[in-house]
C-alpha cells in the first residue's frame, strides 16, 4: 500500500491548500510508476501528480476538492 499525497505547495505554511483539479485515471485502474495521475491547482499554478509506484489506484478525493498539502488523495495497492 502506497499513499499518494497532495504535493507540497508551500514550505512556509504547513496548512497550505490547493484544489484537486483533474483526475487522469479512474478508480480501480491499474497504473505504472511515473504515470500521470492528476493535476492540482494552487491559485493559477498547476502541478502534476505522478504515480510513485505501480499498482491499482483507489481515489480518496474527487475533482474540485480543496486538499491540504501532504494529505493522501489516493492509495495504491
Amino acid at each position, binding site marked *: 500500500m502506497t499513499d499518494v499525497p497532495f504535493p507540497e505547495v508551500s514550505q512556509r505554511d504547513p496548512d497550505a491548500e490547493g*484544489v484537486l*483539479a*483533474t483526475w*487522469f*485515471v*479512474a478508480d480501480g*485502474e*491499474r*497504473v*505504472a*510508476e*511515473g*504515470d*500521470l495521475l492528476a*493535476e*492540482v*491547482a494552487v491559485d*493559477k499554478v*498547476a502541478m502534476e501528480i505522478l504515480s510513485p509506484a*505501480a499498482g491499482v489506484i483507489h481515489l480518496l478525493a474527487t*475533482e474540485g476538492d480543496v486538499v491540504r498539502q501532504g494529505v493522501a488523495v489516493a492509495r495504491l495497492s
Partner: protein
Amino acid sequence: MTSTDTSSPAPSAAPSQRKLSTAKAMVEAVAAEMARDPNVFVMGEDIGAYGGIFSSTTGLLDTFGPERVMDTPISETAFIGAAVGAAVEGLRPVVELMFVDFFGVCMDQIYNHMAKIHFESGGNVTVPMVLTTAVGGGYSDGAQHSQCLWGTFAHLPGMKVVVPSNPHDAKGLMTAAIRDDNPVVYMFHKGLLGLPWMARNPRAVGPVPEEDYEVPIGRADIVRPGRDVSVVTLSLSVHHALDVADELSGHGVECEVVDLRALVPLDTDTILESVGRTGRLLVVDEDYLSFGLSGEVIARVVERDPGLLHAPARRVAVPDVPIPYARSLEYAVLPTRSRIRDAVLELVDA
C-alpha cells in the same frame, strides 16, 4: 515510430486507455516531433519558461533547451516574420500567436508572406510552419481576447486551418500540421484545453494514444450519428452540440453531429453525405455570423444539390457584434446549448 517521452514500464494487466488534457496532448505531439526532427523548433511569447499562458508548451524548454524553445519579445510581426524566414530556409517552426485577436499587428507576415510565398515562387519554395493560436470566449475576457476568427484565416488562400475539439484530435492534428509542407494555422479553444483555472469541460480530458499518429487535415468526423438533423460544427461548440443531442435523443430527435476539425480544406463530401441522410442542416459556429464559415457550409450544400434540404438551413453563430465582457451579455451572443436546442427544434418542426 514511437518517440513519446514516457519511460515508465508498461503495466502487466490489460492497458487502460491513457487520458490527457487537450493542452498536454498538444505538448506531447510537439515534443515527439521535436525529438524526431531536429528542424522543428518553437517560438512565441511566454512559451519557454512560463510554458505558454494556456499550457500549450509546458515542459518543452526543459527538454529541448533555449535554442529550440525561444521566448520572443512582444512583437508579433518580428517573430512571425522570423518564423517565415526560418521555414523558407528549411526549418519547421511552430510559432504561437498568443491570442488570435492579436493577428492585426502581424497580418502582413501571415497572409502576404506565410500564405503566399509558395504561390509566388511558382511552387519552388515551401513554408512548412505551424502558426498556433488560442481562440474562443466564454470566460469574460472581453472583445479583444475572445474571438474565434477562423473564418478570417480560412478566407485567405494559402493556409490550411485546423481546429481540434478534443485531446485525441489535438495531438493528431498537431503532428499532421508539423509534418505538412504547407503553412498550417492551428487554432485551439481555451475552453477545451483542460486547464485547472478555466471553466471545466469534462471532454477536455480524454484518451490519447501514446504512440504518434496523424489526424488527416481536411477530414471531418461524425462524432455522433443521427437521422433527423445534421449539426455541422467545430471546436467547443461540438461539445455543446453533443450535449443537446444527448438531451433531445430522449425526446425522439436524433441529431447527427459533424465535427469539421478543419476549415481548409473543408470536408464538403462528409457534410453532403450527412445532409443527404438527414435533410436538415444546422451550422453552429462560435465565429461571427456574416461572411463566414456558417454561410460557406450552407453554400457548399446548396451549390452541389439544393434538393438535399427538406427545410431551410439554419445557423447559430455570434451575431455581428463584438464579444461583450459582461458574463450575461457574453452568453447572450455565444452559441449556447439553449440556442442550439431551439434551432434544432425549429428545424424538425419545419
